[in-house]
């Protein structure tokens, strides 16, 4: 009790305390706020007689919770506040309440983690139970009468809340969780207006978990969500609960950084401000931010995200729920790449002068120069490369433009020189990401999903944990965060499996739902056709592709790839870039610049001053994914679109608009002036791309493909992604990602 409180107490008594009917009020500061809460048992008995109303209006389940009955016979009926609810056997009381439309306060319970039952916030009254029960851990039984709104339940919550707040610091004004804090919200809703704790609050040493997660461990309420997340979902057993009693704390015991590619998710699941985002610390309050629902482009998964921005600045990126793709997690690269959007940006059209320096020019001049050069070279000397972050609209426009110029040498980075774009099943994840959960055997060929697509890896890990699925892996030595058999490093092992000589073949052939995942890194190999036909042989022998199950998958590497192959961005000749005179790089930063001849004219259209800018003659500044509306197709063929969250930087324009303008200056005007018009054009080429938020599976399986007669080379598969944190121009410009790669990648 501080001096101020004492003073206020002293000022108040004459009027209130002594006129009060209840002299006890003076001696005891009661915690309960209402008279009926002081004696919950008796008032509960009083409340008992009135029967539940008969014609209750139907309630809607919390957050649209759906009930799935695996076996209709197992349905049981319980009563929540008098409302009858039908739920499948095995559901907990808390889930039953959710179905009945009653939101139970909770801290430790999380639907995607195991049940701990240690926060006690979810106490409810159950008829004939002597004490309130922890609803998150109590299985619902037939005929159970659950009461969530009785004085007993309310008092239980109030008491739990008082205990939780006992050691919780009162630093909400300087806490980054403020405004979106479960403890704050629930103490407002269910807590008391005062506490009785007068001793010293405890304090806990902050832990260093790395450059992404900031810890203020004094705020921790020991819900153990982060421990369970790290152990169950992320697969790094680093966090634990140390000590006991009042000395209990979350930590790693030995100094250890959290080296998980999903570590940022502990920020979201922490119900208090103990784990917050380090890059976002003290930058903004959540109520100042504008949320834009968008799509992540840093890998081919297309995680659903919300871009929170304030004015022209992206402040943070948080995940959005999408059960089919990313559930409610996102990778650290997705979450923390946003500071790359503020650095190294190209904001004006530029032309490289005779002295080798860039000069800022107007759009009109830049376009005129490029159009003139494009007309001076032979059509077959024109080459276009789409970058890994390109949206479908801009790739469509680029392809149309180059085709009108007479060239067909256009491709997307990472698809190799001779991609197989004829059959969609040849480059898509046919099982679908959510479908992986059914699998019981995985064969990973030349792919390391942990760095190539962290969310797919999380699904595989989930399956491995739930179904005890076996994982066989062919490729360079790597650390997947689940048990796996390292079968070999190269095509040799693949051949052995195809010829049924390898012991893993029988595992695959005996599986109910076998899955083969081939990495898109193999697209770049010379013998890729042979490798793919070997994989198809395995699939055929082991019956991986059946009418009811397609387990043959390709895991793509970047966001543009699937749409590029759908749109037919396939080069006419394999080595066109070596004889090119006019190269149009649309955000392509991973092309081998040494291959481009010295006298070639290079146009770079993109949003970051990354690798290719050093070779460019003309720069067109374009919009990043956070600033434009664009369609992206993920690795499983799920078309989604981004929305502009912030305005473009400087004089930058949307990619497809730049190409449209260039075509007009070049005298071959493309026939679309609006987003709707270009999408209509896409519809004629690849109609699945405009069916947004829908997964369009491949219709034909790979068996229609002609067999390849190429010779297989025995060079082992290589690491495709060297550094998880830096894969494209945005992440390479990001300071946070640079810190991560310095501290967290294993040397």
């Amino acid at each position: 009790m501080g001096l101020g409180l004492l003073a206020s107490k002293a000022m108040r008594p004459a009027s209130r305390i002594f006129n009060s009917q209840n002299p006890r009020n003076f001696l005891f500061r009661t915690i309960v706020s209402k008279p009926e809460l002081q004696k919950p048992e008796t008032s509960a008995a009083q409340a008992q007689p009135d029967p539940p109303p008969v014609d209750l209006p139907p309630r809607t389940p919390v957050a649209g919770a759906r009930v799935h009955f695996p076996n209709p016979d197992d349905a049981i009926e319980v009563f929540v506040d008098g409302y009858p609810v039908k739920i499948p056997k095995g559901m907990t009381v808390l889930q039953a309440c959710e179905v009945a439309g009653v939101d139970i306060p909770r801290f430790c319970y999380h639907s995607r983690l195991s049940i701990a039952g240690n926060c006690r916030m979810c106490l409810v009254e159950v008829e004939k139970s002597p004490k309130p029960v922890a609803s998150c851990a109590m299985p619902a039984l037939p005929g159970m009468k659950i009461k969530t709104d009785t004085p007993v339940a309310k008092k239980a919550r109030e008491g739990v809340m008082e205990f939780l707040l006992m050691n919780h610091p009162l630093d909400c004004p300087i806490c980054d969780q403020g405004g979106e804090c479960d403890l704050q919200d629930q103490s407002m809703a269910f807590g008391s207006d005062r506490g009785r704790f007068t001793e010293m609050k405890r304090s806990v040493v902050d832990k260093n978990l790395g450059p992404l997660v900031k810890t203020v461990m004094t705020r921790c309420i020991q819900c153990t969500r982060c421990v369970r997340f790290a152990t169950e979902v992320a697969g790094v057993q680093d966090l634990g609960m140390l000590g006991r009693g009042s000395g209990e704390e979350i930590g790693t015991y030995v100094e250890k950084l959290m080296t998980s590619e999903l570590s940022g998710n502990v920020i979201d699941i922490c119900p208090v401000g103990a784990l917050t985002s380090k890059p976002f610390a003290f930058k903004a309050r959540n109520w100042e931010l504008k949320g834009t629902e968008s799509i992540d482009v840093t890998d081919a998964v297309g995680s659903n995200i919300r871009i929170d921005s304030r004015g022209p600045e992206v402040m943070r990126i948080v995940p959005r729920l999408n059960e089919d793709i990313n559930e409610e997690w996102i990778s650290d690269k997705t979450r923390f790449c946003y500071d790359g959007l503020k650095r190294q940006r190209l904001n004006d059209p530029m032309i490289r002068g005779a002295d080798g320096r860039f000069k800022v020019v107007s759009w009109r001049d830049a376009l005129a120069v490029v159009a003139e050069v494009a007309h001076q070279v032979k059509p077959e000397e024109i080459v276009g490369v789409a970058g890994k972050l390109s949206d479908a609209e801009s790739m469509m426009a680029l392809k149309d433009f180059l085709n009108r110029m007479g060239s067909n040498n256009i491709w997307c980075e990472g698809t190799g020189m001779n991609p197989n774009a004829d059959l969609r099943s040849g480059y898509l994840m046919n099982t679908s990401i959510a479908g992986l959960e059914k699998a019981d055997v995985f064969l990973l060929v030349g792919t390391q999903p942990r760095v190539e697509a962290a969310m797919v890896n999380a699904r595989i890990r989930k399956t491995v944990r739930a179904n005890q699925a076996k994982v066989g892996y062919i490729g360079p030595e790597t650390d997947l965060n689940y048990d796996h058999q390292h079968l070999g490093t190269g095509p040799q092992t693949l051949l052995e499996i195809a010829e049924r000589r390898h012991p893993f073949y029988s595992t695959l052939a005996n599986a109910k739902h076998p899955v083969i995942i081939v990495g898109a890194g193999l697209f770049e190999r010379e013998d890729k056709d042979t490798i793919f036909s070997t994989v198809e042989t395995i699939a055929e022998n082991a019956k991986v592709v059946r009418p009811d199950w397609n387990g043959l998958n390709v895991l793509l590497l970047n966001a543009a790839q699937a749409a590029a192959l759908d749109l037919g961005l396939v080069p006419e000749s394999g080595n066109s870039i070596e004889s090119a005179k006019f190269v149009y790089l649309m955000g392509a930063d991973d092309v081998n610049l040494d291959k481009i001849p010295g006298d070639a004219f290079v146009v770079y259209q993109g949003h970051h001053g990354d690798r290719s800018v050093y070779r460019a003659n003309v720069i067109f500044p374009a919009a990043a994914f956070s600033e434009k509306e664009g369609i992206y197709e993920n690795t499983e063929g799920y078309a989604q679109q981004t929305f502009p969250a912030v305005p473009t930087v400087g004089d930058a324009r949307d990619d497809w608009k730049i190409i449209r303008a260039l075509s007009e200056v070049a005298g071959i005007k493309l026939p679309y002036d609006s987003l709707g018009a270009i999408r209509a054009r896409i519809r004629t080429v690849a109609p699945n791309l405009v069916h947004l938020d829908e997964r369009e599976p491949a219709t034909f399986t790979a068996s229609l493909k002609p067999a390849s007669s190429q010779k297989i080379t025995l060079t082992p598969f290589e690491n495709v992604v060297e550094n998880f944190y830096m894969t494209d121009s945005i992440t390479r410009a990001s300071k946070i990602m640079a810190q991560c790669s310095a501290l967290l990648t294993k040397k």
Partner: protein
Amino acid sequence: MISNGLNSATYPEIVSASASQISLSTELRSLLLAELNSSWSSTMLARLAAQRLAEIRQVFRQPIRSFSTALNYHIDSPDNNPDLLWEFSDANKEKVKEIISQYPSNYKQSAVIPLLDLAQQQHGGWLPVSAMNAVAKVIEVAPIRVYEVATFYSMFNRTKVGKYHLLVCGTTPCMIRGSREIKDTLLKHLGVKRNEVTKDGLFSVGEMECMGCCVNAPMITVADYSNGSEGYTYNYYEDVTPQRVVEIVEILKRGEKLPPGTQNPRRIRSGPEGGNTTLLGEPKPPPCRDLDAC
């Protein structure tokens, strides 16, 4: 021992603080009643404020709670860091096998407590982080799962202790019978603070919870790590007095062994002092139904 710290070290302060609070409230009440009719004077407020400030100061003066033998996190030191090699000795490797064989093969991790105990005995009464890592390796779990267990139980020492680790029971019956004096005497005699090791490395004094010897209170326990896990003993010395604990320490210092049990020569085990006073004769059997009469 975390709760130990709370129990004895801070109890007096807490007790006195709450006592003064109660007295303040009654005092305040009388003051209020006395001055109810008169208006509140600023001097009154000032006096109350000064009183309250003194009280707050009192609360702050309480010593920082000293936790068991270590913090809840590890700090690297030359004799305790993960890079040190630590292995079970050959004799203990056999014991490890035997311990693990007592659990189902798919629940190896159940052996964590006996294995930590064995490691602690082998390592002179304390567990360096490398020993915990070795245990984690044996039972095939992540090291953090072993750290969790080792930090939970106060019987696992995570900092150095003496060859003879003296544990004074601090629970209520022993406390009433004078365990605080015993602890103070021990600390004074050995010239150490709690959980500190004497310069010769022989002794350290800790505190523990009730060991169930309340009838012979106060008691101390001597954990003897002087002969590794083979000669490890964990003996209770009961009915100790401040003089007797000093004698016990001196006996141990000379390397002699002392039979455990009550230190009161007039008691036999937990029997009453000076022999029985009741139940002196042969006990009478309870009345029994005459079965033959049926």
